[in-house]
Protein backbone atom coordinates (compact mmCIF):
# COMPACT_ATOMS: atom_id res chain seq x y z
CA UNK A 1 0.00 0.00 0.00
CA UNK A 2 1.06 3.56 -0.49
CA UNK A 3 2.73 4.65 2.71
CA UNK A 4 2.67 8.22 3.82
CA UNK A 5 5.77 9.30 5.69
CA UNK A 6 4.16 12.08 7.61
CA UNK A 7 0.43 12.30 8.23
CA UNK A 8 0.48 16.08 7.98
CA UNK A 9 2.28 16.16 4.63
CA UNK A 10 -0.22 14.90 2.07
CA UNK A 11 -2.44 17.92 2.56
CA UNK A 12 0.37 20.31 1.65
CA UNK A 13 2.76 18.60 -0.74
CA UNK A 14 6.01 20.51 -0.64
CA UNK A 15 7.63 20.14 -4.04
CA UNK A 16 11.40 19.70 -3.76
CA UNK A 17 12.27 19.46 -7.44
CA UNK A 18 10.15 20.13 -10.49
CA UNK A 19 11.18 19.29 -14.05
CA UNK A 20 9.20 20.83 -16.87
CA UNK A 21 9.90 19.79 -20.46
CA UNK A 22 13.53 19.21 -19.52
CA UNK A 23 15.91 17.97 -22.22
CA UNK A 24 19.67 17.39 -22.34
CA UNK A 25 21.54 17.58 -25.64
CA UNK A 26 25.06 16.18 -25.82
CA UNK A 27 27.31 15.14 -28.67
CA UNK A 28 24.75 16.02 -31.34
CA UNK A 29 21.83 14.08 -29.93
CA UNK A 30 19.19 14.38 -27.28
CA UNK A 31 19.91 12.13 -24.31
CA UNK A 32 16.49 12.87 -22.87
CA UNK A 33 13.71 15.17 -23.96
CA UNK A 34 10.46 16.44 -22.58
CA UNK A 35 10.92 15.05 -19.10
CA UNK A 36 8.31 16.24 -16.64
CA UNK A 37 7.90 15.22 -13.05
CA UNK A 38 7.88 16.55 -9.51
CA UNK A 39 9.38 15.09 -6.37
CA UNK A 40 7.60 16.03 -3.18
CA UNK A 41 8.90 15.78 0.37
CA UNK A 42 8.29 12.25 1.63
CA UNK A 43 7.76 10.86 -1.86
CA UNK A 44 9.77 8.10 -3.49
CA UNK A 45 10.05 8.44 -7.24
CA UNK A 46 11.66 5.57 -9.13
CA UNK A 47 13.12 6.00 -12.61
CA UNK A 48 13.33 2.80 -14.57
CA UNK A 49 14.31 2.04 -18.13
CA UNK A 50 16.85 0.14 -20.21
CA UNK A 51 20.55 1.06 -20.49
CA UNK A 52 21.09 4.38 -22.19
CA UNK A 53 17.51 5.47 -21.63
CA UNK A 54 18.61 8.64 -19.82
CA UNK A 55 17.88 7.70 -16.21
CA UNK A 56 21.16 9.00 -14.82
CA UNK A 57 21.02 12.03 -17.09
CA UNK A 58 17.55 12.83 -15.79
CA UNK A 59 18.57 12.43 -12.16
CA UNK A 60 21.71 14.52 -12.65
CA UNK A 61 19.65 17.22 -14.34
CA UNK A 62 17.18 17.17 -11.43
CA UNK A 63 19.92 17.89 -8.88
CA UNK A 64 21.79 20.44 -10.96
CA UNK A 65 24.86 18.44 -11.94
CA UNK A 66 23.77 18.87 -15.56
CA UNK A 67 22.09 21.95 -16.97
CA UNK A 68 19.05 21.30 -19.14
CA UNK A 69 19.35 22.49 -22.75
CA UNK A 70 15.62 23.00 -22.95
CA UNK A 71 12.81 23.22 -20.47
CA UNK A 72 13.32 24.11 -16.83
CA UNK A 73 14.33 22.52 -13.55
CA UNK A 74 13.16 24.23 -10.39
CA UNK A 75 14.64 23.28 -7.04
CA UNK A 76 13.58 24.40 -3.61
CA UNK A 77 15.90 27.15 -2.38
CA UNK A 78 18.59 25.74 -0.05
CA UNK A 79 17.75 22.18 -0.96
CA UNK A 80 20.12 19.73 0.71
CA UNK A 81 20.91 16.84 -1.60
CA UNK A 82 22.39 13.50 -0.62
CA UNK A 83 23.77 11.80 -3.72
CA UNK A 84 24.91 8.24 -4.36
CA UNK A 85 26.35 8.28 -7.88
CA UNK A 86 26.22 5.29 -10.17
CA UNK A 87 29.95 4.95 -10.67
CA UNK A 88 32.36 5.79 -7.95
CA UNK A 89 35.84 4.40 -8.34
CA UNK A 90 38.21 5.58 -5.64
CA UNK A 91 41.81 5.49 -6.76
CA UNK A 92 43.95 3.16 -4.68
CA UNK A 93 46.44 5.96 -4.07
CA UNK A 94 43.86 7.80 -1.94
CA UNK A 95 43.91 6.42 1.61
CA UNK A 96 40.28 6.65 2.69
CA UNK A 97 38.61 4.83 5.54
CA UNK A 98 34.85 4.41 5.75
CA UNK A 99 34.90 6.84 8.66
CA UNK A 100 36.73 9.50 6.65
CA UNK A 101 34.41 8.96 3.67
CA UNK A 102 31.50 9.99 5.91
CA UNK A 103 32.87 13.52 6.30
CA UNK A 104 33.78 13.99 2.63
CA UNK A 105 31.50 16.95 1.90
CA UNK A 106 30.59 18.10 5.42
CA UNK A 107 31.74 17.42 8.96
CA UNK A 108 29.53 15.43 11.32
CA UNK A 109 29.78 14.54 15.01
CA UNK A 110 31.34 11.13 15.68
CA UNK A 111 28.16 9.90 17.35
CA UNK A 112 26.08 10.67 14.26
CA UNK A 113 28.60 8.89 12.04
CA UNK A 114 28.41 5.80 14.25
CA UNK A 115 24.62 5.95 14.17
CA UNK A 116 24.50 6.26 10.37
CA UNK A 117 26.93 3.37 9.87
CA UNK A 118 24.93 1.34 12.35
CA UNK A 119 21.67 2.06 10.53
CA UNK A 120 23.07 0.59 7.31
CA UNK A 121 24.67 -2.29 9.21
CA UNK A 122 28.36 -1.62 8.64
CA UNK A 123 29.38 -0.06 11.97
CA UNK A 124 32.08 -2.72 12.28
CA UNK A 125 33.74 -1.46 9.08
CA UNK A 126 34.27 2.14 10.23
CA UNK A 127 38.05 1.82 10.10
CA UNK A 128 38.25 -0.30 6.95
CA UNK A 129 39.69 1.20 3.79
CA UNK A 130 36.94 1.79 1.24
CA UNK A 131 38.94 0.08 -1.51
CA UNK A 132 38.77 -3.16 0.49
CA UNK A 133 34.97 -3.20 0.80
CA UNK A 134 32.73 -5.54 -1.15
CA UNK A 135 30.26 -4.05 -3.62
CA UNK A 136 27.37 -4.28 -1.18
CA UNK A 137 29.36 -2.88 1.74
CA UNK A 138 30.53 0.02 -0.39
CA UNK A 139 26.97 0.83 -1.48
CA UNK A 140 25.91 0.82 2.17
CA UNK A 141 28.78 3.12 3.07
CA UNK A 142 27.76 5.53 0.31
CA UNK A 143 24.17 5.41 1.51
CA UNK A 144 25.25 6.13 5.10
CA UNK A 145 27.29 9.08 3.86
CA UNK A 146 24.32 10.47 1.95
CA UNK A 147 21.83 10.17 4.84
CA UNK A 148 24.31 11.73 7.28
CA UNK A 149 23.73 15.01 5.49
CA UNK A 150 20.08 14.89 6.61
CA UNK A 151 19.10 15.60 3.02
CA UNK A 152 15.78 16.99 1.84
CA UNK A 153 16.29 14.91 -1.28
CA UNK A 154 18.15 11.64 -1.49
CA UNK A 155 19.23 10.63 -5.00
CA UNK A 156 20.28 7.02 -5.41
CA UNK A 157 21.62 5.97 -8.80
CA UNK A 158 21.28 2.18 -8.93
CA UNK A 159 21.89 1.64 -5.21
CA UNK A 160 21.69 -2.15 -5.41
CA UNK A 161 24.40 -2.70 -8.03
CA UNK A 162 26.87 -5.33 -6.93
CA UNK A 163 24.49 -6.51 -4.21
CA UNK A 164 23.14 -10.05 -4.12
CA UNK A 165 19.41 -10.65 -4.06
CA UNK A 166 18.85 -10.91 -0.31
CA UNK A 167 21.05 -7.86 0.19
CA UNK A 168 18.98 -6.11 -2.47
CA UNK A 169 15.77 -6.74 -0.55
CA UNK A 170 17.38 -5.50 2.66
CA UNK A 171 18.74 -2.40 0.97
CA UNK A 172 15.33 -1.53 -0.53
CA UNK A 173 13.73 -1.99 2.88
CA UNK A 174 16.37 0.27 4.35
CA UNK A 175 15.69 2.97 1.77
CA UNK A 176 11.96 2.80 2.54
CA UNK A 177 12.74 3.05 6.25
CA UNK A 178 14.93 6.11 5.71
CA UNK A 179 12.06 7.86 3.97
CA UNK A 180 9.63 6.89 6.74
CA UNK A 181 11.99 8.09 9.45
CA UNK A 182 13.29 11.33 7.92
CA UNK A 183 10.47 12.29 5.58
CA UNK A 184 12.92 13.18 2.81
CA UNK A 185 12.09 12.85 -0.85
CA UNK A 186 13.89 10.05 -2.68
CA UNK A 187 14.76 9.77 -6.35
CA UNK A 188 15.72 6.20 -7.08
CA UNK A 189 17.16 4.78 -10.27
CA UNK A 190 16.90 1.16 -11.25
CA UNK A 191 18.04 -0.39 -14.50
CA UNK A 192 16.01 -3.41 -13.57
CA UNK A 193 12.68 -3.24 -15.34
CA UNK A 194 11.20 -5.94 -13.19
CA UNK A 195 12.05 -5.06 -9.65
CA UNK A 196 11.01 -1.80 -8.07
CA UNK A 197 10.22 -1.01 -4.53
CA UNK A 198 6.74 -1.61 -3.20
CA UNK A 199 7.09 1.59 -1.23
CA UNK A 200 7.71 3.57 -4.41
CA UNK A 201 5.01 6.16 -4.80
CA UNK A 202 5.61 6.96 -8.43
CA UNK A 203 7.27 4.90 -11.13
CA UNK A 204 8.52 6.74 -14.18
CA UNK A 205 9.63 4.73 -17.16
CA UNK A 206 12.18 6.47 -19.33
CA UNK A 207 13.46 5.73 -22.77
CA UNK A 208 14.78 9.04 -23.98
CA UNK A 209 11.45 10.48 -22.92
CA UNK A 210 8.85 9.60 -20.32
CA UNK A 211 7.24 6.44 -21.70
CA UNK A 212 4.80 5.98 -18.86
CA UNK A 213 4.25 6.70 -15.23
CA UNK A 214 2.01 5.71 -12.37
CA UNK A 215 1.79 4.20 -8.93
CA UNK A 216 3.29 0.73 -8.66
CA UNK A 217 -0.17 -0.54 -7.63
CA UNK A 218 -1.42 0.16 -11.11
CA UNK A 219 1.46 -1.65 -12.74
CA UNK A 220 2.06 -4.60 -10.49
CA UNK A 221 1.31 -8.02 -11.89
CA UNK A 222 1.30 -9.81 -8.63
CA UNK A 223 0.68 -13.36 -9.89
CA UNK A 224 3.93 -13.63 -11.84
CA UNK A 225 5.72 -11.82 -9.12
CA UNK A 226 4.67 -14.24 -6.40
CA UNK A 227 5.56 -17.12 -8.65
CA UNK A 228 9.05 -15.71 -8.98
CA UNK A 229 9.82 -14.44 -5.53
CA UNK A 230 7.34 -16.08 -3.17
CA UNK A 231 4.48 -14.50 -1.24
CA UNK A 232 6.56 -13.24 1.63
CA UNK A 233 8.63 -10.84 -0.42
CA UNK A 234 5.48 -9.52 -2.09
CA UNK A 235 5.30 -6.66 0.38
CA UNK A 236 8.81 -5.56 -0.47
CA UNK A 237 9.14 -5.95 -4.19
CA UNK A 238 6.86 -5.64 -7.09
CA UNK A 239 7.08 -6.66 -10.66
CA UNK A 240 6.71 -4.02 -13.24
CA UNK A 241 5.43 -5.61 -16.40
CA UNK A 242 6.42 -3.73 -19.34
CA UNK A 243 5.31 -3.50 -22.92
CA UNK A 244 6.14 -0.82 -25.38
CA UNK A 245 3.96 0.10 -28.28
CA UNK A 246 7.07 1.37 -30.01
CA UNK A 247 10.66 0.23 -30.35
CA UNK A 248 13.71 2.48 -30.34
CA UNK A 249 15.85 1.48 -33.31
CA UNK A 250 19.65 1.59 -33.02
CA UNK A 251 19.81 4.67 -35.27
CA UNK A 252 17.52 6.63 -32.99
CA UNK A 253 14.37 6.29 -35.08
CA UNK A 254 11.27 4.81 -33.62
CA UNK A 255 9.30 1.84 -34.89
CA UNK A 256 5.67 1.70 -33.83
CA UNK A 257 3.44 -1.28 -33.24
CA UNK A 258 1.81 -0.89 -36.63
CA UNK A 259 5.27 -1.18 -38.22
CA UNK A 260 5.64 2.48 -39.17
CA UNK A 261 8.97 4.17 -38.52
CA UNK A 262 9.31 7.81 -37.46
CA UNK A 263 12.17 10.09 -36.47
CA UNK A 264 10.92 10.52 -32.91
CA UNK A 265 8.42 9.21 -30.44
CA UNK A 266 4.94 10.62 -30.84
CA UNK A 267 3.88 12.88 -28.02
CA UNK A 268 1.00 10.52 -27.27
CA UNK A 269 3.11 7.35 -27.10
CA UNK A 270 3.26 7.60 -23.37
CA UNK A 271 -0.53 7.55 -23.07
CA UNK A 272 -0.65 4.26 -24.94
CA UNK A 273 1.68 2.88 -22.36
CA UNK A 274 -0.40 4.03 -19.48
CA UNK A 275 -3.51 2.37 -20.87
CA UNK A 276 -1.54 -0.79 -21.55
CA UNK A 277 -0.38 -0.98 -17.99
CA UNK A 278 -3.80 -0.29 -16.55
CA UNK A 279 -5.21 -3.09 -18.66
CA UNK A 280 -2.51 -5.48 -17.53
CA UNK A 281 -3.04 -4.65 -13.92
CA UNK A 282 -6.75 -5.27 -14.41
CA UNK A 283 -6.14 -8.68 -15.94
CA UNK A 284 -3.81 -9.61 -13.17
CA UNK A 285 -6.40 -8.94 -10.56
Amino acid at each position, binding site marked *: MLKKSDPTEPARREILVSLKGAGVHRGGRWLVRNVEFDIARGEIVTLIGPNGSGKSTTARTAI*GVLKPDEGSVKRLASLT*VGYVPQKLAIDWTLPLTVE*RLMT*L*TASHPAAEIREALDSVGIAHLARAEV*QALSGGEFQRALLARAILRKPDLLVLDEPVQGVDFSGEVALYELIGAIRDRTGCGILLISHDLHVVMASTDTVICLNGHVCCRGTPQTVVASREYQKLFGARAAGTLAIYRHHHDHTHLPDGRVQHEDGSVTQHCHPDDGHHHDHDHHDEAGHAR
Partner: protein
Amino acid sequence: MLDDFFSRALVAGVGLALTTGPLGCLIVWRRMAYFGDTMAHSALLGVALAFLFEINLTVGVFIAAMLVSMALLALQRRGALSTDALLGILSHATLAIGLVMVAFMTWVRVDLMGFLFGDILAVSRLDIALIYGGGALVLGLLAWLWRPLLAATVNEELARAEGMAPDRSRFVFMVTMALVIAIAMKIVGILLITALMIIPAAAARRFASTPEQMAVMASLFGALAVIAGLFGSLEFDTPSGPSIVVAALALFLLSLLPYAGLLKRGGSANGRPVP
Protein backbone atom coordinates in the same frame (compact mmCIF):
# COMPACT_ATOMS: atom_id res chain seq x y z
CA MET B 1 73.67 31.27 7.94
CA LEU B 2 72.08 32.31 4.68
CA ASP B 3 75.40 33.75 3.60
CA ASP B 4 76.59 30.48 2.22
CA PHE B 5 74.97 29.18 -0.95
CA PHE B 6 74.50 25.66 0.38
CA SER B 7 72.51 26.79 3.42
CA ARG B 8 70.34 28.94 1.18
CA ALA B 9 69.69 25.99 -1.12
CA LEU B 10 68.87 23.79 1.86
CA VAL B 11 66.44 26.27 3.38
CA ALA B 12 64.83 26.93 0.00
CA GLY B 13 64.57 23.24 -0.88
CA VAL B 14 62.99 22.23 2.41
CA GLY B 15 60.48 25.07 2.12
CA LEU B 16 59.64 23.90 -1.37
CA ALA B 17 59.24 20.27 -0.34
CA LEU B 18 56.83 21.20 2.46
CA THR B 19 54.67 22.90 -0.17
CA THR B 20 54.83 20.18 -2.81
CA GLY B 21 53.72 17.41 -0.41
CA PRO B 22 49.97 18.13 -0.23
CA LEU B 23 49.86 19.37 -3.82
CA GLY B 24 51.66 16.24 -5.02
CA CYS B 25 49.12 14.06 -3.20
CA LEU B 26 46.27 15.80 -5.03
CA ILE B 27 48.08 15.32 -8.34
CA VAL B 28 48.52 11.60 -7.65
CA TRP B 29 44.93 11.09 -6.47
CA ARG B 30 43.53 12.99 -9.44
CA ARG B 31 45.84 11.20 -11.89
CA MET B 32 47.13 14.52 -13.15
CA ALA B 33 50.85 13.75 -13.20
CA TYR B 34 51.13 14.33 -16.92
CA PHE B 35 49.12 17.51 -16.60
CA GLY B 36 51.60 18.80 -14.01
CA ASP B 37 54.44 17.83 -16.30
CA THR B 38 52.90 19.82 -19.15
CA MET B 39 52.53 22.91 -16.99
CA ALA B 40 56.13 22.52 -15.83
CA HIS B 41 57.45 22.22 -19.38
CA SER B 42 55.75 25.47 -20.26
CA ALA B 43 58.04 27.11 -17.68
CA LEU B 44 60.82 27.43 -20.26
CA LEU B 45 58.42 29.37 -22.47
CA GLY B 46 57.83 31.54 -19.43
CA VAL B 47 61.58 32.05 -19.02
CA ALA B 48 61.92 33.11 -22.64
CA LEU B 49 58.96 35.49 -22.34
CA ALA B 50 60.39 36.95 -19.16
CA PHE B 51 63.68 37.71 -20.93
CA LEU B 52 61.85 39.13 -23.94
CA PHE B 53 59.63 41.49 -21.95
CA GLU B 54 62.17 42.02 -19.18
CA ILE B 55 59.91 40.92 -16.36
CA ASN B 56 60.65 38.84 -13.27
CA LEU B 57 61.44 35.21 -14.14
CA THR B 58 59.12 33.75 -11.51
CA VAL B 59 56.25 35.91 -12.70
CA GLY B 60 56.92 34.93 -16.32
CA VAL B 61 56.90 31.23 -15.46
CA PHE B 62 53.69 31.56 -13.44
CA ILE B 63 51.95 33.35 -16.32
CA ALA B 64 53.11 30.77 -18.89
CA ALA B 65 51.94 27.85 -16.72
CA MET B 66 48.53 29.45 -16.20
CA LEU B 67 48.18 30.17 -19.94
CA VAL B 68 48.97 26.56 -20.80
CA SER B 69 46.46 25.18 -18.30
CA MET B 70 43.78 27.54 -19.67
CA ALA B 71 44.64 26.50 -23.21
CA LEU B 72 44.30 22.87 -22.22
CA LEU B 73 40.87 23.47 -20.66
CA ALA B 74 39.71 25.31 -23.78
CA LEU B 75 40.97 22.55 -26.09
CA GLN B 76 39.44 19.86 -23.87
CA ARG B 77 36.08 21.56 -24.15
CA ARG B 78 36.28 21.39 -27.96
CA GLY B 79 36.79 17.66 -27.55
CA ALA B 80 38.59 17.13 -30.85
CA LEU B 81 41.51 15.18 -29.38
CA SER B 82 41.93 13.10 -26.27
CA THR B 83 43.35 14.81 -23.21
CA ASP B 84 46.35 12.55 -23.44
CA ALA B 85 47.23 13.71 -26.94
CA LEU B 86 46.52 17.37 -26.10
CA LEU B 87 48.88 17.17 -23.13
CA GLY B 88 51.56 15.61 -25.30
CA ILE B 89 51.23 18.40 -27.85
CA LEU B 90 51.18 21.26 -25.34
CA SER B 91 53.93 19.80 -23.21
CA HIS B 92 56.49 19.44 -25.94
CA ALA B 93 55.35 22.38 -28.03
CA THR B 94 55.82 24.83 -25.16
CA LEU B 95 59.20 23.33 -24.27
CA ALA B 96 60.33 23.51 -27.91
CA ILE B 97 59.06 27.06 -28.41
CA GLY B 98 60.85 28.10 -25.25
CA LEU B 99 64.11 26.52 -26.41
CA VAL B 100 63.85 28.10 -29.87
CA MET B 101 63.05 31.54 -28.43
CA VAL B 102 65.98 31.36 -26.04
CA ALA B 103 68.27 30.36 -28.91
CA PHE B 104 67.14 33.43 -30.90
CA MET B 105 67.85 35.79 -28.04
CA THR B 106 71.59 36.00 -28.62
CA TRP B 107 71.85 39.10 -26.43
CA VAL B 108 71.07 37.21 -23.22
CA ARG B 109 73.24 34.57 -21.63
CA VAL B 110 70.99 31.77 -20.54
CA ASP B 111 72.17 28.88 -18.41
CA LEU B 112 69.86 26.35 -20.01
CA MET B 113 71.07 23.44 -17.88
CA GLY B 114 70.30 25.46 -14.77
CA PHE B 115 66.72 26.02 -15.83
CA LEU B 116 66.19 22.45 -16.96
CA PHE B 117 67.81 20.66 -14.02
CA GLY B 118 68.06 23.20 -11.22
CA ASP B 119 70.94 25.27 -9.96
CA ILE B 120 71.52 25.54 -6.25
CA LEU B 121 74.22 28.14 -6.77
CA ALA B 122 71.59 30.50 -8.10
CA VAL B 123 69.36 30.54 -5.04
CA SER B 124 69.23 34.07 -3.65
CA ARG B 125 67.63 35.52 -0.53
CA LEU B 126 64.85 36.84 -2.74
CA ASP B 127 64.24 33.28 -3.97
CA ILE B 128 63.94 32.06 -0.39
CA ALA B 129 61.45 34.82 0.33
CA LEU B 130 59.51 33.85 -2.80
CA ILE B 131 59.51 30.17 -1.87
CA TYR B 132 58.28 30.74 1.67
CA GLY B 133 55.81 33.46 0.69
CA GLY B 134 54.49 31.52 -2.28
CA GLY B 135 54.55 28.28 -0.33
CA ALA B 136 52.52 29.78 2.51
CA LEU B 137 50.02 31.08 -0.05
CA VAL B 138 49.77 27.65 -1.70
CA LEU B 139 49.33 25.80 1.60
CA GLY B 140 46.79 28.40 2.73
CA LEU B 141 44.74 27.99 -0.45
CA LEU B 142 44.88 24.19 -0.21
CA ALA B 143 43.85 24.24 3.47
CA TRP B 144 40.98 26.61 2.70
CA LEU B 145 39.66 24.45 -0.14
CA TRP B 146 40.78 21.06 1.15
CA ARG B 147 37.30 19.60 1.60
CA PRO B 148 35.94 20.63 -1.83
CA LEU B 149 39.20 19.54 -3.47
CA LEU B 150 39.05 16.14 -1.84
CA ALA B 151 35.34 15.72 -2.57
CA ALA B 152 35.90 16.56 -6.25
CA THR B 153 38.83 14.15 -6.30
CA VAL B 154 36.60 11.31 -5.11
CA ASN B 155 33.77 12.20 -7.48
CA GLU B 156 33.21 15.49 -9.24
CA GLU B 157 29.48 14.98 -9.74
CA LEU B 158 28.98 14.12 -6.11
CA ALA B 159 30.84 17.29 -5.15
CA ARG B 160 28.70 19.34 -7.52
CA ALA B 161 25.44 17.75 -6.35
CA GLU B 162 26.30 18.51 -2.74
CA GLY B 163 27.23 22.13 -3.35
CA MET B 164 31.02 21.91 -3.29
CA ALA B 165 31.65 24.04 -6.43
CA PRO B 166 34.25 21.75 -8.08
CA ASP B 167 34.99 24.28 -10.84
CA ARG B 168 36.26 26.79 -8.33
CA SER B 169 38.46 24.24 -6.60
CA ARG B 170 39.85 23.06 -9.93
CA PHE B 171 40.81 26.63 -10.81
CA VAL B 172 42.47 27.19 -7.45
CA PHE B 173 44.25 23.86 -7.86
CA MET B 174 45.72 25.03 -11.16
CA VAL B 175 46.77 28.36 -9.71
CA THR B 176 48.59 26.61 -6.87
CA MET B 177 50.25 24.24 -9.32
CA ALA B 178 51.47 27.18 -11.46
CA LEU B 179 52.73 28.93 -8.33
CA VAL B 180 54.67 25.88 -7.18
CA ILE B 181 56.21 25.38 -10.62
CA ALA B 182 57.28 29.02 -10.69
CA ILE B 183 59.00 28.85 -7.30
CA ALA B 184 60.39 25.33 -7.77
CA MET B 185 62.20 25.93 -11.04
CA LYS B 186 65.51 27.08 -9.57
CA ILE B 187 65.81 24.21 -7.11
CA VAL B 188 64.87 21.13 -9.13
CA GLY B 189 64.58 22.47 -12.65
CA ILE B 190 61.76 22.46 -15.17
CA LEU B 191 62.10 18.84 -16.23
CA LEU B 192 62.00 17.42 -12.72
CA ILE B 193 59.45 19.55 -10.86
CA THR B 194 56.67 16.96 -11.14
CA ALA B 195 58.98 14.30 -9.74
CA LEU B 196 59.40 16.31 -6.53
CA MET B 197 55.60 16.50 -6.25
CA ILE B 198 54.74 12.91 -7.10
CA ILE B 199 57.49 10.68 -5.71
CA PRO B 200 57.27 11.78 -2.04
CA ALA B 201 53.46 11.44 -2.24
CA ALA B 202 53.79 7.94 -3.66
CA ALA B 203 56.29 7.03 -0.95
CA ALA B 204 53.88 8.26 1.73
CA ARG B 205 50.93 6.20 0.49
CA ARG B 206 51.69 2.99 2.36
CA PHE B 207 52.19 4.68 5.71
CA ALA B 208 49.04 6.81 5.64
CA SER B 209 45.49 5.84 6.52
CA THR B 210 43.84 9.21 5.85
CA PRO B 211 44.37 11.75 3.06
CA GLU B 212 45.58 14.32 5.57
CA GLN B 213 48.22 11.97 6.99
CA MET B 214 49.44 11.25 3.48
CA ALA B 215 49.73 14.97 2.70
CA VAL B 216 51.83 15.65 5.82
CA MET B 217 54.02 12.60 5.27
CA ALA B 218 54.59 13.57 1.65
CA SER B 219 55.89 16.93 2.85
CA LEU B 220 58.25 15.27 5.33
CA PHE B 221 59.51 12.73 2.79
CA GLY B 222 60.02 15.55 0.31
CA ALA B 223 62.04 17.54 2.83
CA LEU B 224 64.12 14.46 3.58
CA ALA B 225 64.76 13.92 -0.14
CA VAL B 226 65.81 17.55 -0.58
CA ILE B 227 68.27 17.37 2.32
CA ALA B 228 69.75 14.05 1.20
CA GLY B 229 69.82 15.12 -2.45
CA LEU B 230 71.54 18.45 -1.79
CA PHE B 231 74.19 16.87 0.41
CA GLY B 232 74.74 14.28 -2.32
CA SER B 233 74.94 17.02 -4.91
CA LEU B 234 77.60 18.81 -2.89
CA GLU B 235 79.52 15.63 -2.16
CA PHE B 236 79.55 14.18 -5.68
CA ASP B 237 79.34 17.44 -7.62
CA THR B 238 76.09 16.41 -9.35
CA PRO B 239 73.31 18.76 -10.47
CA SER B 240 70.94 19.52 -7.59
CA GLY B 241 67.62 18.65 -9.25
CA PRO B 242 68.50 15.13 -10.38
CA SER B 243 70.21 14.44 -7.04
CA ILE B 244 67.05 15.37 -5.14
CA VAL B 245 64.91 13.22 -7.42
CA VAL B 246 67.26 10.26 -7.00
CA ALA B 247 67.06 10.67 -3.22
CA ALA B 248 63.25 10.79 -3.41
CA LEU B 249 63.25 7.66 -5.55
CA ALA B 250 65.41 5.90 -2.95
CA LEU B 251 62.83 6.84 -0.28
CA PHE B 252 60.04 5.52 -2.49
CA LEU B 253 61.85 2.22 -3.05
CA LEU B 254 62.45 1.93 0.71
CA SER B 255 58.71 2.41 1.26
CA LEU B 256 58.05 -0.59 -0.97
CA LEU B 257 60.08 -2.94 1.22
CA PRO B 258 57.96 -5.54 2.98
CA TYR B 259 58.69 -4.21 6.47
CA ALA B 260 56.80 -1.07 5.55
CA GLY B 261 53.58 -3.03 5.41
CA LEU B 262 54.21 -4.52 8.84
CA LEU B 263 54.18 -1.10 10.48
CA LYS B 264 50.51 -0.84 9.68
CA ARG B 265 47.94 -3.60 9.66
CA GLY B 266 49.12 -6.48 7.48
CA GLY B 267 47.57 -6.61 4.03
CA SER B 268 45.48 -3.47 4.32
CA ALA B 269 47.51 -1.74 1.64
CA ASN B 270 46.48 -4.31 -0.92
CA GLY B 271 43.16 -2.60 -1.60
CA ARG B 272 40.91 -4.18 -4.14
CA PRO B 273 39.56 -1.85 -6.79
CA VAL B 274 36.02 -0.83 -6.00
CA PRO B 275 33.56 -2.46 -8.39
